């Protein structure tokens, strides 16, 4: 007698039908993408940072730094006092500014020199006087000061002779 809980066996033909059934179905790429998007929104995937991209970014940063340094150096050199003095195409305003800069530079240099030495240092006094004299004579040659520089230069010569 057949036990009703014991499954009947399939015939060979029935078994063959089962064996012929497909075991897999087509992949649905839309479903895959939807799932990946959902998982990404839930933070399952880390941000993809490609090694080459980060290397390129680092190289670009270094290049920018170097280019910036070179540009800054060139800008500084182009506007240096020595470079401006050698230029012949300056406007009148530029030349006034240049004169002010040179004068200021002279005063700063003199102050620095005075700070670094003593007032009775004969070399320091002589250098300071020579430069001041040279500047006064240059201005006097051009008669730019209405005679003041000539008198000043003369007074300095007299003072130097009596010392």
């Amino acid at each position: 007698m057949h036990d009703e809980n014991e499954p009947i066996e399939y015939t060979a033909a029935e078994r063959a039908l089962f064996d012929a059934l497909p075991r897999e179905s087509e992949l649905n790429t839309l479903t895959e993408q939807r799932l990946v998007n959902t998982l990404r929104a839930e933070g399952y995937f880390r941000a993809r940072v490609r090694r080459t991209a980060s290397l390129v970014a680092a190289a670009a940063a270094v290049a920018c730094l170097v280019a910036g340094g070179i540009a800054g150096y060139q800008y500084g050199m182009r506007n240096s006092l020595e470079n401006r003095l050698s230029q012949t195409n300056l406007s009148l305003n530029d030349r006034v500014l240049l004169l002010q800069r040179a004068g200021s530079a002279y005063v700063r240099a003199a102050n620095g020199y005075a700070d670094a030495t003593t007032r009775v240092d004969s070399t320091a006094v002589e250098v300071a006087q020579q430069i001041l004299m040279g500047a006064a004579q240059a201005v006097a040659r051009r008669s730019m000061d209405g005679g003041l520089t000539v008198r000043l230069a003369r007074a300095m010569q007299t003072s130097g002779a009596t010392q």
Partner: protein
Amino acid sequence: MTVTVASEELPDSTLIRRFLDGDERAFRTLYQRHTPRLRMVICRLLGPRRDDADDLVQETWMRGCRGIHGFNGEAKFSTWLTTIGVRAVYSRFARFSADEEPLFEDVAEHGEGDQALAMDLERVIEMLPNHQRTVVVLHDIEGFTHQEIGRQLGIAPGTSKATLSRARCTLRRLLNAGGVRHA
């Protein structure tokens, strides 16, 4: 020397570890490897409601991903995933069971007398009640044991066996009634 292995060739355990590290490609490889079979199982389990298959595939993977830390490798990943899929389908059955045929009911009135219908095995399986169809799909097509089916469905192995017994009788009756093409 470093040897690069394509992700398609990596074992599931490696892909799972990489996925847990946030590797999207590892996940896609896992998905593409296991979804064709999973989707077919879900389609068959759903029977006449197979239009819901893609939703349930997605739901299965989401449940799987959320619980993948609990996958200890004792069973094969495909078996573990299929179990999740089966339970997802059963949750769906429970949702629309109120206006459907009751579970574990025989199908006597479904196929008999409908001899004009040229049925094939796939359609006959589809006509089975949910529980019978589930056991036939899992046991006779996917090769799970009654112990495994019992764990998947939360029923005793004996219940699975008894359900299969009824299902096979129903199948044979429907196959004979429908004049199914025998190979």
